[in-house]
């Protein structure tokens, strides 16, 4: 460990993983260098159309995070950059980076895009997988962060037109590559994965047959911003395909191509793509050819079910596609597949290859430069008990760089990695972050509005259509406007200075900028006026570019008139703007972890090791939870050994208080300031982590409890570990208590558990006969190795129909199993001496009770429901409360650990702060008017409104808004029948003023 600890972290890779890690670290007091090899952050997720299982638009949910990362004053984006060398020890690394030149000055580029419009060179657009052209000067995608254009030197012919056209003079052709050296305390690797190169699977004809595409290409085809604008078409002829085949496991579960592992996500994304494609085109017939469908995540199984039942996705279970052949005339494709015993052929219009995940191409280079180990498949090596640590101390890993995984798992891990780095560097927290100093705010109350209007040409983007001078002229005539001017780029750094000077010179107390969209630029201008002493909410924007000049390019007169209208509206609102205060709430620097199982302990440890007090509340008399029931050795140690070590650490940890045999009885307060009543008193904490776990299903079927020879998989595991099991003919029945009508979901872990049991059994008794009755084997990720090993050891796998479970009877003292074998298409009878039931996982019975106390929701399967399935997997919608482990969903040890670390990191982003800012734009009650009718209370999604009694009078009620909880959506305001509720910054009077001015009779 270093003598001095550096309070900064380098995150390698700017995909969703890296972005999440960076945000979490930056929010908890560390300086972050986010290093990305491409020109913009966003990674693979930025290319996706929708995400499963909610069909959220990928870019829509991701873009705010990208923008947040781009704007965070403690995150430095270093894009287009390769890692060259590192030196040093954990706590103090010196990293040498090489930033490849953009040939564009980042400080000057405004992202206006004129350069790309004028560039005469077209080249293949990687973002759209080569299905569309881009120019030699480009941004990867319109929402790219940073929005800086970059010259593709390979394609550029050096004609010089971009430099000429750039009014900001940002193009610098001879700008050299730059070597950077940074000092960081820890490094987090999240460079992601590469797609499997489908050309290797020659039999599928990718790269030869035009209508065979990869799944990522299909994502782009589906996307509204893709090459075909969201209409799926055949690349060969632009016709909409009627029949689409998805071929699974292309480059996964395939030893021949060196990828024996399962890529974990392809089943789900194929189902998603099939559903979305069907939504895009009526009458489209999607077919999916797969071996096992691995819908193991939260609500995945429902999604699969809906795909089949509602969307008519045809599932060809248990098939391997042998080859794809093309009809040279129609370019249709014949898919030959082996199903039940025979080869069949079916014709399709389009074939989508669900390509698997490969280790990132530069993984090996990275491992050599940073001196950490890769596993046998080339992914980063981790231990099951240390899923976020690489083999080199001080370097952590998250996301698909360690193994194939989906977005929510990645995001949870990303937060987890932040916790790991935070623990390592907790001494240096807040040493390198900058807090911006602003001048004292000018009190504008009682002043007449003095509005300054700045109208932007945006190079030629606005000025080329809208007559900017006449808009300025018009603005000067508006009531309240004391100053107006035009700018070439209002957003450029020099104009910011100008605005500041102008505010002073003309005593402006409101500022209106007419330029582009507030979504990207409002914070910049708000910051500028704040720097000159104005409250940032005394600012209003008129969007005369994105929503005027660009969409009315050929109607100069009307566009100019509309710009005037928009400016008039903005000024009308600006006149009524009031300074808003973000209140600051003090924060209690401690956390409560509910549940003392694996997740709870890890979460507690990761919070405590960052220097904060933690209370663990465990209702039983011991720590450990379900972990105590596990015996198979995975990774470095046996679960028991690990558990004992962990409990020892927790017991000995100075700032962890363990409350055993304790229950939660009441929770009040809000983020930063929770008061939690527990059995033996009350604790006050800033954040709460729910890690209450789940329970195994207690079967009632299959003679369980009636016949000793019938046991659960956990019981078998226990017996095997004590070497007490003697069975010769063992039947394992999968999905007992899962995937049925009552419990429709898949419990994720039972298949792998069964494999471990079967392997152990075969090892202990090589002559024993093991039969596994299953519908799918869902050994995703590297656990596919278990499935293969079991098969190699001679375990018999019998696929049974989706709908009919095996029948077990006890006849004449013997156990008899009757089951349908779908491969042989006949009934099978086995007389086992032992029947093992792979039982699923069930949510805790008292989840409802706890959820009510915490005011957090449960999912339909009665697990706790996170804020967002994809991007906020460990958060609740209610701020300050987090989720980890099996309380969220069944999961393996490594997954639970990573998620617990993630929850810890999220909690630390709250409790590491001294104060929390509330939102500026929130609801406020006019108590004189409010009669406490209570209509607003249920309207609020955030439980931010309470109806309380006005203290002295017993009868009169009123609504109060909890500023810590309100998000400022305004739903309550619109719902309030008396007009007592107001939304700050969008007051009814302000919006009405805009409406009225909009409908005034315009200019002249």
């Amino acid at each position: 460990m270093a003598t001095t600890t550096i309070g900064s972290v380098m995150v390698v890779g700017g995909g969703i993983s890296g972005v999440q890690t960076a945000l979490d670290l930056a929010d908890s007091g560390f300086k972050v260098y986010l290093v990305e090899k491409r020109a913009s952050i966003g990674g693979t997720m930025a290319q996706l159309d929708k995400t499963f299982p909610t069909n959220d638009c990928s870019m829509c949910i991701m873009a705010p995070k990208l923008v947040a990362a781009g704007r965070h004053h403690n995150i430095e984006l270093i894009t287009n950059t390769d890692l060259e060398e590192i030196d040093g020890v954990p706590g103090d690394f010196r990293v040498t980076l090489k930033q490849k030149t953009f040939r564009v000055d980042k400080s000057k580029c405004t992202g206006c895009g004129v350069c790309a419009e004028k560039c005469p060179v077209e080249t293949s657009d990687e973002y759209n997988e080569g299905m569309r052209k881009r120019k030699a000067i480009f941004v990867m995608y319109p929402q790219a962060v940073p929005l800086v254009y970059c010259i593709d030197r390979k394609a550029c012919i050096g004609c010089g037109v971009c430099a000429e056209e750039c009014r900001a003079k940002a193009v610098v052709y001879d700008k050299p590559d730059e070597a950077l050296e940074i000092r960081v305390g820890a490094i987090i690797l999240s460079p992601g994965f590469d797609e499997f190169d489908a050309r290797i699977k020659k039999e599928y004809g990718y790269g030869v047959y035009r209508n065979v595409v990869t799944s990522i290409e299909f994502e782009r085809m589906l996307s509204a911003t893709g090459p075909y604008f969201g209409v799926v078409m055949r690349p060969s002829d632009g016709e909409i395909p009627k029949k689409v085949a998805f071929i699974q496991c292309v480059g996964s579960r395939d030893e021949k191509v060196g990828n024996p592992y399962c890529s974990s996500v392809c089943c789900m994304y194929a189902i998603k793509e099939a559903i979305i494609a069907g939504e895009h085109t009526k009458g489209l017939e999607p077919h999916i050819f797969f071996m096992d469908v691995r819908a193991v995540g939260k609500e995945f199984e429902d999604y699969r079910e809906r795909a089949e039942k509602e969307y008519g996705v045809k599932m060809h279970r248990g098939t391997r596609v042998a080859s794809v052949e093309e009809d040279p005339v129609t370019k249709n494709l014949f898919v030959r597949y082996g199903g039940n015993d025979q080869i069949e052929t079916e014709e399709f219009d389009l074939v989508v290859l669900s390509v698997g995940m490969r280790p990132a191409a530069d993984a090996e280079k990275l491992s050599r430069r940073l001196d950490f180990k890769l596993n046998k498949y080339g992914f980063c090596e981790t231990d099951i008990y240390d899923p976020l640590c690489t083999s080199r101390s001080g370097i952590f890993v998250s996301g698909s760089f360690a193994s194939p995984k989906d977005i929510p798992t990645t995001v949870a891990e990303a937060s987890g990695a932040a916790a790991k780095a935070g623990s390592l560097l907790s001494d240096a927290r807040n040493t390198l972050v900058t807090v911006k100093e602003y001048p004292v705010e000018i009190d504008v109350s009682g002043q007449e509005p003095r509005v300054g209007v700045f109208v932007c040409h945006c190079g030629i983007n606005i000025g080329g259509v809208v007559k900017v001078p006449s808009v300025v002229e018009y603005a000067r005539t508006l009531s309240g406007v004391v100053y107006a001017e035009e700018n070439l780029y209002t957003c450029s750094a020099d104009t910011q200075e100008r605005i500041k000077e102008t505010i002073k010179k003309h005593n402006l107390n409101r500022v209106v900028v007419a330029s582009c969209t507030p979504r990207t630029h409002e914070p910049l201008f708000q910051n500028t006026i704040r720097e000159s002493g104005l409250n940032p909410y005394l600012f209003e924007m008129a969007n005369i570019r994105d929503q005027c000049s660009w969409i009315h390019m050929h109607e100069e007169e009307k566009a100019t008139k509309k710009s005037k209208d928009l400016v008039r509206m903005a000024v009308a609102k600006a006149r009524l703007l009031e300074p808003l205060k973000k209140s600051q709430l003090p924060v209690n620097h401690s956390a409560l972890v509910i549940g003392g199982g694996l997740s709870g302990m890890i979460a507690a440890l990761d919070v405590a090791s960052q220097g904060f007090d933690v209370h663990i509340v465990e209702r039983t008399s011991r720590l450990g939870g379900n972990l105590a029931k596990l015996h198979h050795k995975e990774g470095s140690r046996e679960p028991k050994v690990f558990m004992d070590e962990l409990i020892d650490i927790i017991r000995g940890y100075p700032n962890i208080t363990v409350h055993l045999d304790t229950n939660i009885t009441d929770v009040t307060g809000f983020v930063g300031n929770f008061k939690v009543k527990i059995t033996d008193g009350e604790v006050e904490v800033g954040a709460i982590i729910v890690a209450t776990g789940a329970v195994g299903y207690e079967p009632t079927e299959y003679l369980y409890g009636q016949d000793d020879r019938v046991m659960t998989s956990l019981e078998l595991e226990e017996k095997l570990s004590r070497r007490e099991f003697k069975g010769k003919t063992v039947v394992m029945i999968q999905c007992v208590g899962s995937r049925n009508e009552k419990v429709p979901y898949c419990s994720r872990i039972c298949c792998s558990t069964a494999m471990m049991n079967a392997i152990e059994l075969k090892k202990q008794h090589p002559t024993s006969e093991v039969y596994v009755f299953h519908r799918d084997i869902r050994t995703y990720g590297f656990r596919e190795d278990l499935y293969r090993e079991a098969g190699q050891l001679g375990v018999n796998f019998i696929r049974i129909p989706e709908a009919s479970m095996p029948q077990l009877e006890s006849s004449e003292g013997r156990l008899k199993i009757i089951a349908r074998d779908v491969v042989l298409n006949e009934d099978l009878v086995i007389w086992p001496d032992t029947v093992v039931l792979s039982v699923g996982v069930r949510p805790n019975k008292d989840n409802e009770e706890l959820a009510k106390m915490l005011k957090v929701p449960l999912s339909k399967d009665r697990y706790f429901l996170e804020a967002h399935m994809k991007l906020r997997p460990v958060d609740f919608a209610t701020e300050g409360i987090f989720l980890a482990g099996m309380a969220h969903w069944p999961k393996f040890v490594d997954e639970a650990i990573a998620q617990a670390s993630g929850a810890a990191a999220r909690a630390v982003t709250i409790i590491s702060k001294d104060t929390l800012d509330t939102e500026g734009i929130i609801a406020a009650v006019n108590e004189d008017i409010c009669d406490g009718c209570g209509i607003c209370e249920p309207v609020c999604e955030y439980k931010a409104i309470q109806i309380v009694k006005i203290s002295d009078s017993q009868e009169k009620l009123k609504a109060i808004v909890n500023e810590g909880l309100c998000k400022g959506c305004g739903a309550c305001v619109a719902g309030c029948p008396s007009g007592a509720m107001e939304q700050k910054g969008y007051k009814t009077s302000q919006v009405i003023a805009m409406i009225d001015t909009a409908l005034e009779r315009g200019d002249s």
Partner: protein
Amino acid sequence: MKEDIRIGVFVCHCGTNIGGFVDVPSVVEYSRTLPGVIYATGNLYTCAEDGLASIRDAIKEHHLNRVIVASCTPRTHAPLFQGVCEEAGLNKYLFTFVNIREHCSWVHMKEGPKATEKAKDLVRMGVARAQLLEPKEEARIDVEPKALVIGGGISGMVAATSIANHGFPVYLVEKEADFGGFVRNLNNLYLGGKDATEMLKPIVDQVTSNKNIIKCLKSKVAGVDGFIGNYQVALDVDGKEVKDKVGVIVLATGADEYVPEGLFGYDLYENVVTLTEFEILCKRKTLPKISSIAFIQCVGSRGHVKSYCSRICCNVAIKNALNIAENYQNILGKDERGAVVEKVGVDMKAPEEIAERRRRRRGRRDREGGEEEAEAPAPSEGIEIAIFNRDIMSYGLEHELNYNKAREKHVRFVRYSPANPPKVYTENGKLVVDYWHDTLKLQRKMNVDMIVLSTPLVSPPSAPGISKLLKVPLGQDGFFLEAHVKLRPVDFATDGIFVCGTAKGPADITECVFQAQAAASRAAIPLARGYVQAEALTAIVDADICTGCGTCIEVCPYGALRKNMDGVAEVIVAACKGCGCCGATCPEGAIDLSHYTDSQLLAEAKAALQEAIQ
């Protein structure tokens, strides 16, 4: 608002030249049917006084605002008719010429009816064009009566003096601490053998004593902007910035000698020197005693490194051969052994570099066997001199006499082929030239004490920078490129900038002086006149359409376009010649050429392609 188009058409019989083949009355008749034509008439000779009078009268009488003459060629007669129009108060650009003689009657003599048809078509085209014409004015631009001469070598000094003597102030900018340039390196001059220093002195004196010359030593041109008559120049005069406006600029930045690194043992042997180094040795009286010497010509020129012939080296080599043959004792150094050349070229700041080069050479030779004892010097009569050459370029009158004289003095001229050049190495510590004797068809060796390499003059490294600064072109050899090799040898295409001396290619002193005086007198013209008349037919930029891609600026040979404050192109009217290249290039279609607009040309073409109206 817009006045009606009133066209008068005057069709010329040109005696029988036109009338003999074209039915002029029917052309006149036809003209009357064309839109906008108010008046049409035939003249026997439109260019005769009565014909001209008829135009004048008709303009007044019929209030014509467009005049078309269908007769001979505009190339000879347009000014005449334009003059008439102006006399009658009509802007001369509202006149249209239709050529029905050279392009019709004379070339379709045997096809009367077709010639008449064609004449009608041509008139119709003229009418179509005339309808779209607009009046134009030629702008007059004042000239700042000052000049800037860049380069204080022989050319620059002569040019500056010459302009100054016309009475105009001249900035003479020299980067070194003294005037004189490359000539300062030379020993004596060929053709007469005058001492170079002596020759230079009165020229420098003329400069230093001239009150009109503003002498800027240790100076550079830092910035140039503007156009003829109005160049804003920024000078760095010994670290101080001087800004002024000048009307014209003369470029006389000179040349450097090529350093033949890696050729003929130059880096290996101390006694292998360049021609200029040899001059310096002679000038400083530091030449070692020698009994034999070889000159190798065309080292690096004519395809070796540079493709061109450096023009002067043959004559300089012959001069030096004669100096040795005739006057050895005078050029010989006083020391026992030769000295090391210290300076080369005009770049007086480079001694360290040259010393380093020398050290390297010595180092290499030391490794090859150390310094050898020099042989006793041979008597001057016995000095063996050979000039290895590909051709002897002793052009003109007197050089050839020198060549003959050298042969008389037993200077050996050995021809080598570029495919098999002589080799230079040492044998027993003595330099050897190993060469193929083409007449004898034998490989021969010659032992020499010294080898002089005739290397070409090359454009100095500063040239590209100056080229960019003044927006004047460099040729492919790196020298400045004049407007026309034959007819405008000291002009640049850009008006108001001139070039002379070795800046535009190898030249000897005489030639430099010619050029300098030529450039000075060319430069003095606008200064003396006090104004320049701009073309009326210039390119016109539509600033609303232009996005500032800058392509027009690149293609304009006259530097007549630039970007304005708004970042869009604008035409420098004073510099534009109206060729239209920018207009045809402009990717946005934002540039048109006045008087030859796209719409005018297209109207003409469309009129031509109309089915003939009977």
